[in-house]
């Protein structure tokens, strides 16, 4: 039997309009909040639309998507904090939710009373809650502060307590929104492990995170939501890959670095660091080839482009490398330009990349530059064992650390003698 069935779920908010029509809304309308304000200029906004899925017990569903995609709205509806506009949800068992970094704690109450209160909300009698108290505090690591009002807790302690309470209430469904955002590595590890254990005994988890690594490790299913709708559901690996590819194609105009990122012919859509497999990476492993991937949206036909890459580190221009060829582009559309930074070139340092392109058109003599200053900053890190003697003793930290080819051989004259 499915533990959670969601059918055509939708949530519509009425955005406040210009307010001009508000004057004309009748008193009667205003007293009937379920009919809306009567403000005609108000616009509808569907935070969630036609979302359907079903989950079996033991599923750990990772929910991914950009900010504002509707992930939190979905969890809030499932937690019954907000009411859906359309659709239906049928679930079985106790639901525990960790929304927006916190459980339902009363900040003025001490931790132990908050536990009793949360238990009461889940139909667990007080004596049972008190019996579980030591376990809860031990897992959260806040034994010494059980009588302290939770408003005096640090955000890490608060989150640890919230998670510990949630998992110790024996829920059948756990809704977790960004629980890994706060909390140190050790606690994250503990959380993930505990979730996995509980899932093995039939707990269904809906897990929202921007940490793709955690999604792929923990979840056995993933769902990608964009603009309130499900884009793809399936194996975490596949969904995460597709999601990351799509993030690429999104114009992030919000990034307003200095420089001409657009001209008459083209605009820079995105500049990212990717691995050889094409996956988005935040840092460059020194021992692997990495690529600076520039997406250009070409607006006119018959453009020609030549690109250059400036790599800076510690305030120095390390090098500028210019493409030796001028590339003719055909129809307008999005083009990818890849610049390979070979393995074993960079040192363990922070690099900043500026991408510049020179655009020309076949019938115009004029050149149009397109420059994205400091478009990308990434760290290069060594994947070799730091304890290896090479890394520590024999390498000096420079701006770059190319791996040179070494040969040792006998001189020819010498060789003749032997």
């Amino acid at each position: 039997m499915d533990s959670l069935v969601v059918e055509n779920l939708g949530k519509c908010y009425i955005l406040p309009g210009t307010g001009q029509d508000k004057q004309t809304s009748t008193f009667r309308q205003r007293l009937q909040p379920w009919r809306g304000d009567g403000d005609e200029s108000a616009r509808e906004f569907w935070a969630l639309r036609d979302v359907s899925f079903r989950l079996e017990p033991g599923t750990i569903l990772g929910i991914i998507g950009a900010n504002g995609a509707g992930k939190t709205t979905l969890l809030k509806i499932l937690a019954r904090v907000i009411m859906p506009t359309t659709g239906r949800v049928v679930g079985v068992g106790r639901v525990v939710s960790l929304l927006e970094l916190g459980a339902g704690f009363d900040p003025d109450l001490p931790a132990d009373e908050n536990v009793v209160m949360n238990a009461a909300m889940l139909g667990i009698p007080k004596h049972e809650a008190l019996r579980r108290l030591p376990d809860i505090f031990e897992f959260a690591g806040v034994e010494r502060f059980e009588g302290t009002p939770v408003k005096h807790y640090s955000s890490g302690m608060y989150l640890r307590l919230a998670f510990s309470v949630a998992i110790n209430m024996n829920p059948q469904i756990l809704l977790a929104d960004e629980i890994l955002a706060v909390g140190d590595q050790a606690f994250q590890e503990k959380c993930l492990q505990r979730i996995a254990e509980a899932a093995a005994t039939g707990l269904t988890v809906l897990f929202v995170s921007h940490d793709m690594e955690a999604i792929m490790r923990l979840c056995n299913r993933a769902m990608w939501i964009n603009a309130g709708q499900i884009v793809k559901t399936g194996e975490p690996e596949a969904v995460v890959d597709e999601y990351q590819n799509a993030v690429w194609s999104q114009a992030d105009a919000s990034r307003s670095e200095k420089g001409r990122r657009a001209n008459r012919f083209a605009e820079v859509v995105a500049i990212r660091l990717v691995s050889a497999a094409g996956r988005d990476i935040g840092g460059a492993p020194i021992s692997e080839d990495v690529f600076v991937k520039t997406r250009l949206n070409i607006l006119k036909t018959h453009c020609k482009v030549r690109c250059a890459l400036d790599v800076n580190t510690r305030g120095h221009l390390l090098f500028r490398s210019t493409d030796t060829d001028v590339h003719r582009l055909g129809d307008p559309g999005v083009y990818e330009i890849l610049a390979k930074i070979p393995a074993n070139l960079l040192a363990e340092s922070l690099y900043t990349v500026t991408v510049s392109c020179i655009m020309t058109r076949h019938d115009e003599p004029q050149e149009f530059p397109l420059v994205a200053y400091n478009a990308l900053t990434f760290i290069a890190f060594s994947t070799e064992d730091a304890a290896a003697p090479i890394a520590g003793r024999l390498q000096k930290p420079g701006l770059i650390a190319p791996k040179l080819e070494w040969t040792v051989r006998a001189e020819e004259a010498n060789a003749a003698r032997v």
Partner: protein
Amino acid sequence: MQLAFRRLLGWGPSAAAEEAEERNWRRHKWVIEPSRMGFFARVEEVWRYRRILWFFAIQRVKDRYEGTTLGPFWLFARPLMPIAISTLVFGQLLNVPSENVPYFLFFLAGSSCWRIFERSMLWVTQSLEAAKGLIKKVYFPRIIAPIASVAPAITEFAILFTLLVLSCVVYWIKDGVFYLRLGVGMLAGVAAVLLTCFFALAVGLWTSVLQVRHKDVRYSIRYVSQFWNYATPVIYPMSKIPAKYHILMYLNPMAPLVEMYKWGMLGIGQFPAKELASGLVISAIVFAAGLVYFNRSEAASVDKL
């Protein structure tokens, strides 16, 4: 220990009952739909969540009376001050009739009942706002918040009643007459208090939802209750009301309740049978309609919290 003791007395659920309930929670099939729950589903739900109702009720009482340094002093001083002043003004200066008991006792009894109503109505009105932090994070039937916030009315009654008894003792020593009515009649007074709480909740169901969207409600409620106070026989006896305005006593459910309390506790005035019947019908209608209104507006209003 406490639990074992309670079980020994057969008070509180047995271990088996709790286990059955736990199983029920695990297997409980819930549905979330935009359409509102039916009445019986609601009642059943509030029952499932009764523990949190109890927790909130105790919490609200604690909020009210904990954390003050002078503690017990305030409990009695707060209601006593305005009563003393009013006695001076209405009883001494204006000579308002008080049905053969000292005006102080007359006013204390009347305003006890009124005060319970006024305070409860305020608490209920603010209940959603006060529980906002929790309402936005976790689910429990929202109606539990207003219901639980009536709880301090019980302690308020205990305080005011103690005050009344103490004052009667003082007058007994002073005048040699014990004004308090001892006997079954007092149950009428207790009933009046319970009905007052019920009516306050009925009104509060409306105001608590309304104040989320219309701040006016929050501001105006104090003014309204002042006028209401004068329209209720608190500072004057019901018998002083001219016959042509007596219809107001039928329309204002608080009037017979205050009168009933005075009748029950001090044995003064008439038992307002007809007015009470009318008042109860009005309260029941306000309450039922309030439930419907609360149920309908709940979701939309919680979005606005």
